[in-house]
């Protein structure tokens, strides 16, 4: 099971066989999580600190549960962005934490690259739980696992990522992962929400949902942040929903068995029609949440193995 990483900072540095390792191990944890006794001991004796400089309920809960199920001592630190003056104490916080000898550090931060910076200053394994607009690797891995289970494979699929690509770390990590696994990618959204240099990414770009969704196997919707909704990037929520919101009519252009994904939390009636989101025949959104716990267990397990091997080698 090849996995040679010290940290999980992004998809960019992962090889395809390492991605497969995480997904394969996660399958075991999916099975475990469905039993009534959900305990394993992969992280027994290790300390996991979840440090969130940006508010998150879902991701933090998912990491917390993953750590607890593997037997780690888990501590949550919510460092609201307001109390930490724009990352000024980031290094200090890292040094302080480091002195407490954590083994796994799960970090979310509003600035791109902040988790990389922190990882340079600590002695433990660092997991990026989202940094600015940069990467959110565990989200891409859980999406990959969801796709692989629904489609039976993770290559040669037509996959559309729709919505606010420009500000989305989920989109970046997914682009990297799905590209590495040799899928055909399409980005669909208004030009105001497309990142610059998009023509150099080796993807197809559409500003029309119906054209972009034609014959795709997977439709990944992105959350539109509230602060982008009015005036600045799009004229209004209702026009956005009309042109870019996923509904049954737009989805009818995709393959009949296309699955619908969303990283959550959803804005029903903005980027996705509520009924469609709940349609168990098309939507795999609940599966994504389930896979999230399993993938995070797998990622932390693999990192902990490397950490223990490294410490054994150093001793």
């Amino acid at each position: 099971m090849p996995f040679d990483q010290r940290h999980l900072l992004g998809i960019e540095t992962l090889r395809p066989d390492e991605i497969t390792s995480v997904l394969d191990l996660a399958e075991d944890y999916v099975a475990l999580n469905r039993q009534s006794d959900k305990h394993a001991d992969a992280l027994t004796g290790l300390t996991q600190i979840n440090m969130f400089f940006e508010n998150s309920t879902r991701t933090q809960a998912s990491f917390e549960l993953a750590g607890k199920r593997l037997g780690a001592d888990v501590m949550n630190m919510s460092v609201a962005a307001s109390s930490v003056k724009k990352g000024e104490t980031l290094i200090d916080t890292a040094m302080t934490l480091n002195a407490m000898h954590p083994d796994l550090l799960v970090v979310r931060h509003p600035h791109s690259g902040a988790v990389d910076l922190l990882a340079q200053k600590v002695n433990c394994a660092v997991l990026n739980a989202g940094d600015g607009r940069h990467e959110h690797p565990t989200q891409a891995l859980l999406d990959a696992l969801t796709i692989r289970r629904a489609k039976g494979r993770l290559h040669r699929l037509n996959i559309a990522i729709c919505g606010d690509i420009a500000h989305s770390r989920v989109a970046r990590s997914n682009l990297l992962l799905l590209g590495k696994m040799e899928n055909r990618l399409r980005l669909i959204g208004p030009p105001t929400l497309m990142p610059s240099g998009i023509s150099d990414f080796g993807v197809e770009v559409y500003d029309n949902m119906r054209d972009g969704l034609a014959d795709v196997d997977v439709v990944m919707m992105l959350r539109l942040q509230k602060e982008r909704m009015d005036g600045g990037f799009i004229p209004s929520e209702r026009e956005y929903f009309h042109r870019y919101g996923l509904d049954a009519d737009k989805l009818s252009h995709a393959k009949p068995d296309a699955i619908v994904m969303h990283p959550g939390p959803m804005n029903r009636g903005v980027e996705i029609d509520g009924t469609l989101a709940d349609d168990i025949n098309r939507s795999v959104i609940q599966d994504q949440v389930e896979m999230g716990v399993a993938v995070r267990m797998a990622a932390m397990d693999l990192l902990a193995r490397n950490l223990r091997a490294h410490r054994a080698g150093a001793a």
Partner: protein
Amino acid sequence: MSDVLFTNARLIDPEAGTEFLGWLSVKGGRIADHGNAHPHAIDEPAQVVDAGGKCLAPGIVDLGVKVGEPGERHKESYRSAGLAAAAGGVTTIVTRPDTDPTIDNPETLEFVTRRAQEDSPVHVRPIAALTKGREGREMTEIGFLKDAGAVAFSDCDHVVHNTKVLTRALSYARSCDALVIGHPQEPELSRGASATSGKFASLRGLPAVSPMAERMGIDRDIALLEMTGARYHADQITTARALPALSRAKANGLDITAGTSIHHVTLNELDVADYRTFFKVTPPLRSEDDRLAVVDALRDGLIDILSSMHTPQDEESKRLPFEAAASGAVALETFLPAALRLYHAGHLDLPQLFRAMALNPARRLGLDAGTIAPGAPADLVLFDADVPFVLDRFKLRSKSKNTPFDGQRMQGRVLGTWVAGTRVYEAT
């Protein structure tokens, strides 16, 4: 102010655009003569310097150096900046007014002038702010400041938003025959940006600005020059898109010159790599295509001046996530070795480099410097253009060590620096 005779020197003459093996004599702090045959007998030279075939060039005139006085002396003082300059072959530093408080009144200007005279071994010429507090609302006392020694007027990286304010400042500056230095950048488009838009910035998830913002900035300023006839210098042109506008403005006879920074001609956006904040500068590093276009413009003389844009920042202000980190790099000591990369890569010859680093800035600011012509002040740099070394930032004389060239292989180092005939630096 001793008399010196340099022999066996590779003389770099940016005015004539030539270099030749010869001698140069200094008398009374000024260049007495130079030639390529045997030196005339000069009356008992106090000192003979055998250059051993190394390069002797006019000292560098560095336009746009940030010294931390007043306000941020812990980042750079006149003493540390002056020592760094001397070690870098820079004999005149032209300082920026983006201090705290801003150098926007004659009293502050007199303070920094006095501090510079007390502490700096090289010449210091100050730029004063164009508007009070660099806020873009009211013009400074351009006349008084000029009388007090300001060689130019600039709000540095604060673009004067209000075109009416800028128009009046340009018109008034013209009446004082004062040079205005602008920062060509569309301020709204570039707000908050820490990278140049494109694939790299998108992959790194950094807020980015299109190179078009620079062209819009220069277009606006050129239009106002047509209106006012002011003397204008664009501090940094860093993109290919801004060059045609500059070329047209020059062809149309406007009194405009342009500069660029050493970092924009030797580095590109990819050097930022994994969020290395020492590579964060303003404007952000550009694409390789832009870099090459700017290098060409520098060689062809469309871009007149090459500056270090020396900007000291302490460790704390750089040890932050990229977006939040301070901008700028120290460069006085790395300026010449970095510029020599252009020489070694075959882009510019040495006279062309010193035209951009010494002659043109001196001419534009009306300074008696930048040349080896007889009668000029003996501000000189002796350097070996070829010797290789690996840069160690902790050996820099600047108080701040934020250089992007740390650990990099460089070629060329300063052997000695003379200001008005007095040796102010000697390599050990």
